[in-house]
């Protein structure tokens, strides 16, 4: 049973560029949430996708956008990268009717220079 997978593992981008991070949910899961974890901090909720739509959004600017595909996989896009966007980006998946069971992926480490 495959768990949550994310790609790439690491990424280095230059300020102003755009980046796309990818996530495949745990087998059978239909809901994907994205979190940003800055160094030394706890994860902060970015948004959640279900049935290919954004269900809820945290306090992040519109530069952060996402997408969910029919196979439930998801992408996180960040435009006009800032130095402050450097963080570990975590994807978590769950079933919509069991939201209290959230499984995390290993994350993508994004460094903006």
């Amino acid at each position, binding site marked *: 049973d495959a768990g949550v997978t994310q790609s790439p593992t690491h990424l280095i981008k230059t300020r102003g560029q755009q980046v796309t991070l990818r996530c495949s949910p745990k087998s059978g899961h239909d*809901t994907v*949430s994205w*979190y940003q974890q800055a160094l*030394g*901090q*706890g*994860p*902060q*909720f970015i948004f*959640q996708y279900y049935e290919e739509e954004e*269900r*809820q959004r*945290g306090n992040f600017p519109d530069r952060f956008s996402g997408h969910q595909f029919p196979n439930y996989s998801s992408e996180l896009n960040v435009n006009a990268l800032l130095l402050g966007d450097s963080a*570990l980006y*975590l994807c*978590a998946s769950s079933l919509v009717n069991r*939201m*209290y*069971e*959230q*499984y*995390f*992926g*290993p*994350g993508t*480490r994004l460094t903006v220079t």
Partner: protein
Amino acid sequence: AQTVTQSQPEMSVQEAETVTLSCTYDTSENNYYLFWYKQPPSRQMILVIRQEAYKQQNATENRFSVNFQKAAKSFSLKISDSQLGDTAMYFCASRISNTGNQFYFGTGTSLTVIP
């Protein structure tokens, strides 16, 4: 919004001993879940234990147990018979049951188990 506070940035414990990690939270809701997650150096966040707020009995999972004090809004994690593999960051988190989908995390406690 909910806030979760972990006031112990770092802790250490001797192998085989017991350690307690503290967490307090702030919510006006009655129905919510509380969690402890472990994040080892490999970065993958792993669920340690979960507590439903409506349950008075404290949750236990093998060597891990919680002390849930609803009135005090306190949710501490006790690790018994600490093992070297318990070395990790531990995050306390909350989720409102019927309105929110997001988890709120504390800033974490770095636990080191000393051989």
